[in-house]
């Protein structure tokens, strides 16, 4: 955990000018107007002014120099103009040790800005940690402010966005700071599945602090200026003797490509906040809210001729699943989640005829699109988010099976693969599945099959639903026999087509790829009124 210095800065910048403007604020309360109240008004204005400059101009300049915006600038950019309503501007920390009780160590609002506002007109709660005040460190008061808006967000049903930029716990406060973290964690857990929670890491986030973003639905990072780790490079060095930089240990690249902790990274603060506004448009406000529908200019019956020629003739040849997704969704607009992690599965948000949908697709271009530990976990978490927030799931299947090998078995592919199976099976939102090519073995079952309550399951003419590829199957069925090539051809003839699944009703129709968009849009209209509930339970026991 990083610490901070207790250097006082000139924060009461404009304290004495306050009297000039207080008049207008008092108009409605004129009967309370008196000389004694004037000094209170003075103090109100003074505190407000102080709150607005946080740790003072010097620290603001330092923040800018690091290529970062201040807590308030970030909120201004994230929220619609003049829509932000701030809470708890007068809250101050309550620490009385180590000289913290001194006036010059008290900052109105403490090290976080909280409140609610609008993003493209829709309500969102936000907290933005202020690095210029005690390095954004978390005091009891800081935590209390965050908890307050989280409670209210859950009560009214609106998402919570956290803009994280904090050195860690307020060490002077000791256990009070730790308690603050736990209070936030509890609320993160309680809010999970009730309102969407988004974390945007815009500076350091270390130690216990990392668990709040980890509990939220989406964690985004800013490249080069944000870090997430349990312990920093110094502690790593002393414990494991590893030499590692902050960036290598917990930078945006590490977490978006290696660990899978973060869902996406953006170029800088401005880019991240503008993208977050765009991302927010995809989300419902709460679990009681339907998936949002926006005005759509892309014809729902648009044919996509390019898809008819996309799947290569040879089943061993790769193609890009993103070509299918981009072709089918509204305006080729696809917000990919975790684009650089477990790339053998593609997940993300898009719209169909204006309605938000979650897309899951095997990616034949990477590791043949097989399911392994990482891709199963990535897919499962995404499917569960969609299910929790009424977002229909569209699944594109081209999967040769689960990845074999000791690395996967020792790593627990059975347990992790089960997560994806579990997630698809328990989901009650509309589920539409398109088998574009291979659907082999257990992976066929897993990928939102009819058997897992898929509402509409389609096969393209290139679909092959089978227990395994022809070669492997023939080696087992005709072990030791001659004419393997002939048998292989027979197996291909029998299973390497959509008919075995279609005659059993395991796919509802075999469709021309170019009509896929049209069919899905129509199905989503029908399924909009879908109602399905799982048996009562305290909660399910997903194989974690």
């Amino acid at each position, binding site marked *: 955990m990083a610490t901070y210095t207790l250097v006082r800065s000139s924060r009461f910048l404009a304290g004495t000018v306050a009297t000039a403007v207080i008049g207008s604020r008092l108009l409605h309360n004129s009967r309370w107007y008196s000389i004694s109240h004037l000094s209170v008004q003075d103090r109100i204005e003074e505190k407000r002014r102080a709150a607005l400059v946080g740790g003072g101009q010097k620290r603001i300049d330092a923040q800018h120099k690091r290529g970062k915006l201040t807590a308030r600038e970030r909120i201004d950019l994230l929220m619609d103009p003049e829509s932000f309503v701030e809470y708890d501007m007068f809250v101050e920390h309550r620490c009385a040790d180590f000289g913290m009780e001194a006036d010059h160590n008290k900052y109105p609002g403490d090290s976080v800005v909280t409140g609610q506002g609008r993003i493209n007109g829709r309500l969102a709660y936000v907290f933005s940690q202020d690095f210029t005040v005690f390095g954004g460190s978390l005091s009891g008061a800081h935590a209390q402010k965050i908890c307050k808006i989280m409670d209210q967000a859950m009560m009214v049903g609106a998402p919570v966005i956290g803009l994280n930029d904090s050195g860690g716990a307020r060490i002077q406060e000791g256990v009070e700071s730790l308690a603050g973290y736990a209070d936030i964690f509890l609320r993160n857990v309680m809010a999970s599945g009730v309102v969407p929670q988004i974390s945007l890491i815009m500076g350091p986030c270390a130690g216990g602090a990392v668990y709040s973003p980890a509990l939220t639905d989406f964690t985004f990072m800013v490249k080069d200026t944000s870090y997430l780790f349990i312990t920093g490079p110094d502690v790593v060095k002393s414990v494991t003797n590893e030499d590692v930089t902050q960036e290598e240990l917990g930078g945006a690249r590490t977490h978006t490509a290696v660990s899978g902790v973060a869902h996406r990274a953006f170029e800088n603060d401005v*880019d991240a906040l503008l993208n977050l*506004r765009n991302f927010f448009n995809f989300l419902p406000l709460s679990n009681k809210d339907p998936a949002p529908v926006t005005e759509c200019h892309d014809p729902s019956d648009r044919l996509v001729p390019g898809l008819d020629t996309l799947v290569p003739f040879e089943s061993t040849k790769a193609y890009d699943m993103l070509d299918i997704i981009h072709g089918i969704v509204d305006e080729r607009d696809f917000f990919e989640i975790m684009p650089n992690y477990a790339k053998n599965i593609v997940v993300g948000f898009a719209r169909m005829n204006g309605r938000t949908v979650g897309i899951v697709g095997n990616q034949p271009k990477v590791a043949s699109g097989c399911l392994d530990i990482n891709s199963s976990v990535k897919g499962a978490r995404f499917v569960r988010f969609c299910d929790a927030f009424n977002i229909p799931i569209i699944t594109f299947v081209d999967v040769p099976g689960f990845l074999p090998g000791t690395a996967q078995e020792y790593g627990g592919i059975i347990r992790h693969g089960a997560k994806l199976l579990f997630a698809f099976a328990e989901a009650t939102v509309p589920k539409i599945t398109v088998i574009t090519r291979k659907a082999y073995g257990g992976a066929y079952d897993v990928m939102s099959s009819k058997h897992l309550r898929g509402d509409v399951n389609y096969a393209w003419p290139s679909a092959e639903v089978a227990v395994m590829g022809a070669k492997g199957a023939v080696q087992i069925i005709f072990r030791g026999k001659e004419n393997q090539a002939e048998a292989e051809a027979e197996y291909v003839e029998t299973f390497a087509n959509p008919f075995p699944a279609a005659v059993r009703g395991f796919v509802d129709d075999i469709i021309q790829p170019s009509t896929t968009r049209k069919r899905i849009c129509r199905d989503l209209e029908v399924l909009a009124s879908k109602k399905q509930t799982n048996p009562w339970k305290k909660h399910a026991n997903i194989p974690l």
Partner: protein
Amino acid sequence: REWSYPEWGLFHTCACVCVCVFPQVHVKMADEAVCVGPAPTSKSYLNMDAIMDAIRQTGAQAVHPGYGFLSENKEFARRLAAEGVTFIGPDTHAIQAMGDKIESKLIAKAARVNTIPGFDGVVKDAEEAVKIARELGYPVMIKASAGGGGKGMRIAWSDDETREGFRFSSQEAASSFGDDRLLIEKYIDNPRHIEIQVLADKHGNALWLNERECSIQRRNQKVVEEAPSTFLDPATRRAMGEQAVSLAKAVQYSSAGTVEFLVDSKKNFYFLEMNTRLQVEHPITECITGLDLVQQMIRIAKGYKLQHKQEDIPINGWAIESRVYAEDPYKSFGLPSIGRLSQYEEPVRLSGVRVDSGIQEGSDISIYYDPMISKLVAYGASRADALKKMEAALDNYVIRGVTHNIPLLREIIVHPRFVAGDISTNFLPEVYPDGFKGHPLSAGDRRELLAAAAALHIAAQLRSQRFLGEQRSVGHWELCLELEKSVHMLAVSHSRGTYTVEVDGEKVEVSGEWNLASALLPLSINGSHKVLQCLTRSPAGDISLQYLGTTFKVRVLSVLAASLSKHMPEKLPEDTSSILRSPMPGTVVGVAVKPGDTVAVGQEICVIEAMKMQNSMTAAKTAKVKSVHCKTGETVGEGDLLVELE
């Protein structure tokens, strides 16, 4: 199989296909299709055995060879003749005579056709090439005897260039035509390339169907062609036509053919070569003469006499063809690019526009074939009319997924020199001495572009606030736009579909029937009709717009976001002088260096072959080679690291 012209309806067509891009457009259009092999052309479209099998299998009575591939292969024509199948083209003798540049020149001389001074024989080696070059005097042209289409062709201005040119041309000739014989002739500097279309039957009749001006070229390959030429007067036209016909007659030519001439500034013309096939640019001749050349070829092959007399051949109107290539025009006027056509719409709904293509949305542009996407032809009553139509056609052409040369085509056709007809084969290097840089924006252009970007941005903003059951009213915005490194503050207001944008103190009104999903943006900007295309639009305000052919990047931010952006750290681009990246996708055919070698500026490091073109990659500075990341035979993508220097 029904071979009963002129009843086109009974015509049964059969296409040969390779397995690579199955199913393609020509497969869809044909009644029957046969696969002749995998993607590399040597295994499919150049594989005579496979094609002969396909002919037998379908019982085809005649074969139209198209252009390229086996269209000028005398062996193919001979094998067809041996099996009693009609080759829709000239007979073997004419193909052989004209296919060999050395022999054709001798025949042309004998037929009293003007020829270029040169060495009428096969050049043995580089040293002999240098000797001949010195005798002729520089500059000289080294070209493949069997060649065509600019392949295996090099111009040399010095002894060293002659040696290098000899090596390249013979390699390219060997890989493209299986014949590495070369010849050398005097290079006519700054000429026009004008060709005469001829049509001859099997009864000794021959016609000339006027000329095609094909001077706009890059690396000796045609880019923009037109018919007629602005340069020829009736007398020259007639003289060229008559010489072309006399050459055709000299080789008992039958079918459609093209006699290419170089024409100097004094209207002297010299025979270059005769192409014994249909030319890529034949549609423009069809436009101005009203003749269907393929139909004529089939008639002639069947043995019919020509229907027309020379005086029946008109010049009606003006036709222009743009060759739309999948290539990056910003690199040497066009280096091949590959990719998948994620979106593709041809401007076929415009009147007077014809698009000949073999691809469709979803097609892959691969490294195996010529990177041509289509031939875009505009036809009008006058040249000005045809040019206007070409402008509209280029603006309305939607190509996504591959880099294409529309920016260059769009600039050429509006360039004052081109509009005035003042062109030569050196047009591109003369007009763009530092390489093509896209459309230079005038102040007025800049305002229009900024206004369009602002309107698009606001339209997207407004829509993102219109969720089902929610409406809100905002009518005025202040935006900060960045275009080509300059920053502009704009005020935008919106009412009833019209965006009023104040740019640099001037009001620009943007309206029109457009939406955020369509590929084309038909806008009315201050009352004038402009078709733009929005290629990408990011949530962070980056918009790329195709405007007047060129793609421009505009960043649109709110005033607040723009003012906060100044705090954002600058990300530095990588130093490119010490790394060599592949400028295009292709195959490495040779690596000349190894780690530790010292290379000089301009020294060849490796050779990349793409679309049958060999490209020499040279060092940008004198340095030691740090590491080599490619090896011979490897396929590389655009931007792949080849060699690192220290």
